[in-house]
């Protein structure tokens, strides 16, 4: 058994044991099994990382033949190249941290074994997704993480809001998945294969192929790229299909950290990076990615500024950071996007789990208006949250600084209108990010306690089982940027990424980013500092300012606070008409036509026929004879009718 097989299947094994035998081995047993499996997987992933990245041992490992039908062959294979190895390392490390953290966080829950099982299932599906070597397996993993996400968002299934959020996440993702499925099919039609390698080798030959889509002749590669991107938009909560992500915070906090911050939501980024050979020949698609990413970054940050639920603030922050990654992809800075993905996974998981620690300390309080003044009581969490926020705001020498600056520089270095648009969006978002991050820190930890005495007397530092994973993640948030900078985006990036990313020479924005003017490099730091300063002014020194601002800019605040009314608009445009249509089909279509006329109608009719027929069975012999004679007459008539008299 090779090392990659072990990494992928350990979580599956853990899931099966915890899920099927959770009752037998108990909560403690399930936690032990899943956590140890994930930790082993994480260690192995580090070994694999060294093996692949340093020694360049990329490979494809076949697990089993999956589909073999005529010329259509699809294997169940693990594609181990630099891109997937980076993802594997991030997934397993964050996932093992979250697993261990969950042992403490979920300690009062009734279904801990099930929770651990779902976490492991998610990890397996995510690993399936990133190790896919063909479109089918990619889709399998993609849908697998969707299911796991659904199960985990709705984990507290006694809460109505959790169920609704789970369904919402699933349905909104269906919209994106619809595009993804079409994109995969388009690839299959264009390239007549679902293997990644042969697709990427054929891209150049197909760069001018036109494709008949909905009656229009469109550029084949652009169409495929845009459809794939539609899937990414859904999964990565980009503008348009983002509404599920904030609601997904109904799930337990470890879930938010693992799935809705560090890994699953970055699947879209991974997808685009994986298909970089294709996107490179679809410039229009790249422009769309770029603009949408830039818009998302600002849009989400404006909302994050006004929210009061601690998890929602971080959720909008996640969305905003994903926007950064996408506009990096849009300017062909795939390495930079992956870099930010990696650093973001660490510091955002840290922030989420830190928030979880706060919530845990505050007796499940999530509203920041009811917090404050607790930094002395939970100093470790406080420090860790600071580290996460500094990294998020892109302060120098923290992880986020390297990746975020690289993205902004690459966008600037693109020297197109789209790149510049994204650059300025990124700068605005950087200011807002710093602002809401310190707003969060100040409201949560500083000022006067706003919680009641009972809650305040309970405030306590989290147990070691929760703090240790946070420390591990904090290490990532501190050093991942500095340490991996040369590989992901620096001088040795070509050797680092090998064949897994393909960038046209004229699109090498990461290279050009090293030669941008000095002010471009410094601007993000200054706007970040500005944001932090503004937050201190508004929330610590002059707490009356926010209220006055809200009053002065009431319409704008209302817009931001209500999330630009996207949910309301979707509700009006899509949800309500769908319900009306659904209830029409349910009541009239199903009830009246199919049920009354079809199912029930047929069975009632059968009953009637049966009753009529049994009425013939009178028990009188002469009736029976009569029927026989009539039968003979009918038969003879039938013959004469069919064959004639002559």
């Amino acid at each position, binding site marked *: 058994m090779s090392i990659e097989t072990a990494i992928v299947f350990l979580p599956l094994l853990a899931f099966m044991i915890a899920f099927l035998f959770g009752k037998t081995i108990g909560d403690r047993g399930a936690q032990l099994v899943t956590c140890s499996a994930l930790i082993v997987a994480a260690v192995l992933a580090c070994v694999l990382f060294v093996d692949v990245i340093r020694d360049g041992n990329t490979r494809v490992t076949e697990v089993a033949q999956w589909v073999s039908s005529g010329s259509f062959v699809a294997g169940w294979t693990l594609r181990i190249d630099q891109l997937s190895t980076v993802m594997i390392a991030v997934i397993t490390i964050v996932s093992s941290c979250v697993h261990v953290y969950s042992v403490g966080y979920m300690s009062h829950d009734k279904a801990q074994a099930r929770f651990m099982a779902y976490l492991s299932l998610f990890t397996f599906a995510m690993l399936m997704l990133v190790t896919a070597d063909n479109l089918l397996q990619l889709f399998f993993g993609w849908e697998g993480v969707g299911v796991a996400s659904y199960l985990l968002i709705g984990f507290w299934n006694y809460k109505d809001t959790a169920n609704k959020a789970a369904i919402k996440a699933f349905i909104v993702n269906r919209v994106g998945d619809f595009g993804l499925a079409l994109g995969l099919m388009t690839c299959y039609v264009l390239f007549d294969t679902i293997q990644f390698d042969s697709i990427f080798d054929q891209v150049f030959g197909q760069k001018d192929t036109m494709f008949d889509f909905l009656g229009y002749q469109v550029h084949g590669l652009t169409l495929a790229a845009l459809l794939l991107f539609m899937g990414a938009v859904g999964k990565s909560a980009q503008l348009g299909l983002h509404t599920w992500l904030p609601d997904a915070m109904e799930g337990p906090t470890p879930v938010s950290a693992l799935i809705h911050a560090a890994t699953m939501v970055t699947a879209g980024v991974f997808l685009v990076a994986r298909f970089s050979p294709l996107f490179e020949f679809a410039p229009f698609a790249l422009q769309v990615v770029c603009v949408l990413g830039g818009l998302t970054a600002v849009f989400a940050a404006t909302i994050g500024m006004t929210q009061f639920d601690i998890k929602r603030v971080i959720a909008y922050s996640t969305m905003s950071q994903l926007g950064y990654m996408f506009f990096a992809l849009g300017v062909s800075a795939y390495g930079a996007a992956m870099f930010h993905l990696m650093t973001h996974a660490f510091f955002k998981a840290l922030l989420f789990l830190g928030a979880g620690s706060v919530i845990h300390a505050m007796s499940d309080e999530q509203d920041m208006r009811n917090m404050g003044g607790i930094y002395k009581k939970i100093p470790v969490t406080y420090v860790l949250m600071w580290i996460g926020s500094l990294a998020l705001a892109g302060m120098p020498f923290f992880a986020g600084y390297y990746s975020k600056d690289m993205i902004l520089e690459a966008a600037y270095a693109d020297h197109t209108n789209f790149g510049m648009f994204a650059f300025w969006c990124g700068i605005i978002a950087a200011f807002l990010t710093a602002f809401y991050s310190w707003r969060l820190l100040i409201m949560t930890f500083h000022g006067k306690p706003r919680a009641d005495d009972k809650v305040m007397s309970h405030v306590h530092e989290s147990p070691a089982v929760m703090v240790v994973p946070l420390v591990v993640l904090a290490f990532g948030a501190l050093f991942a940027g500095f340490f991996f900078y040369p590989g992901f985006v620096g001088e040795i990036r070509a050797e680092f990424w090998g064949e897994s990313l393909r960038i046209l020479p004229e699109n090498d924005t990461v290279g050009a980013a090293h030669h941008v003017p000095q002010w471009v490099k410094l601007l993000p730091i200054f706007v970040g500092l500005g944001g932090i300063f503004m937050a201190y002014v508004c929330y610590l020194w002059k707490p009356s300012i926010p209220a006055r601002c809200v009053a002065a800019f009431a319409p704008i605040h209302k817009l931001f606070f209500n999330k630009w009314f996207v949910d309301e608009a979707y509700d009006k445009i899509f949800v309500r008409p769908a319900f009306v249509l659904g209830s029409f089909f349910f009541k009239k279509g199903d009830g009246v036509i199919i049920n009354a006329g079809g199912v029930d109608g047929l069975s009632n009719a059968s009953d009637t026929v049966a*009753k009529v027929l*049994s009425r013939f069975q009178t028990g009188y012999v002469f009736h029976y004879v009569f029927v026989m004679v009539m039968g*003979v007459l009918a*038969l003879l008539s039938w*013959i004469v009718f069919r064959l004639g008299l002559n």
Partner: protein
Amino acid sequence: MIQSVDVFQDIKTAMPEVATAAFALWLLVFSAFKKHQAFAVASFLSCAFLVGIIVVCFGMFGQYDEPVVAFGGLYIQDYFSLSIKMLIALGTLISLIYVYFDMKQTQIGRFEAPVLMILSMLGMFFMVSAHDLLTLYVGLELQSLALYILASFNRHSYKAPEAGMKYFILGAIASGMLLFGMSFVYGFAGHTGFGVLEEVLNGTTYNVGLTVGLAFMLVGLAFKISAVPFHMWTPDVYQGAPASVTAFFAIVPKIAAICLIMRLLNGPFGGLQDQWVQIVYALSMASMVLGAFAGLVQTSIKRLLAYSSIGNIGYALMGIVAGGADGGASVVVYMTVYMIMTAGTFGVVLSLRKGGVAVEEIADFKGLSKTSPFHAYAMTLFMFSLSGIPPLAGFFGKLVVFKAAVDSGYIVLAVIGVLTSVVAAYYYLRIIKTMFFDEEDAGMDEIQIVPYAAQHGTLVATLAVVVGFCVVPAVLIEYAEVLVRSLF
């Protein structure tokens, strides 16, 4: 075709019939003088004899590569007849086991029962080997007369004689129609032998008189297989007769009758195929539809199985409509499977006694899954098989019939067959629902399980066939194709 030359060869050729006739007569005399335990001894001897007959038929198998005609063309022996006789003897054996234990419990057992069953079987043997209209008629009547008596065997009940009487009167009318039809055919061809009829009728142009004769003959035979609209006797007789006798009715005679129809239609009337297809088509469709729908409202398990048998005959007739070796083979497979399934179903019914008598009402099955899980699960499998659910035997039976019909272009008939089997599935599955999901009524009489190992052994054997058929379905199907070839 080989012509038998002297009377010894005649007897040798007709060995199963000669032996059966001799045994039946000897048994009658022997038992009449036996003072004690006559019923038990006669039953046991009959069982032993039936096993012997199966062995004899099996031993004769190798000598009849070529059909042999004996008794001056009245009688034919071939692969087909020998195989079907083994099947009939097996069915009679199973029925006899049921009859013995059933009558022992209800205390109506008399040695005439096995004798009559053997005689009835003799009639069926002649039907299967008939090579002349007269042999056909004599065989049919012998079989029927024994059945009339068996139906009214329980003289203490008012229902049984009523059933026997109805059966007799209606059967007499059907025989009249059969004879009437034969006279038409004789009038046209001037002969009653199958060989001559085949020569004369092959290539004749359409003749109304001949076709009317054919129609009347088919009506007479349709009565025996209880095809709609000549089925009216079936529910009443099934319900009135003792349960084990009903099992005999359901299991055996129909095989003989349907095989007789196959020989008749493919041999002498083979040239009139486009005419008899019209009739059989109508009978098939009507039987499937009525069997499915009329069964829906039944509350008696015996009446339900009566309608089930009516419906199943419709499917078998579909195989005859399809024609050719494939169609013929499908009929043989279908009837074999049907025989086993029905035998098993009756085995369950007869194992459950209420006040000594086999259960009558479907409601008696309530809560069976708790009181006797083995019988509940066995019944479940038989019901699934009867509704044609894979991988049980009943599925393959239906599959071959539908396939033959579709291959011959009778798609409408096949579709109707599929649809009616959906309707019929309702009443089969309802029994399962009753057993597993309905609570026992308070104060319901206790259901006793019979203690007899032989009966349970039979039940287990049929169950094994129904479940194990899917392992080697091709064997029986290919074998059936081989043996129906001797019909053409």
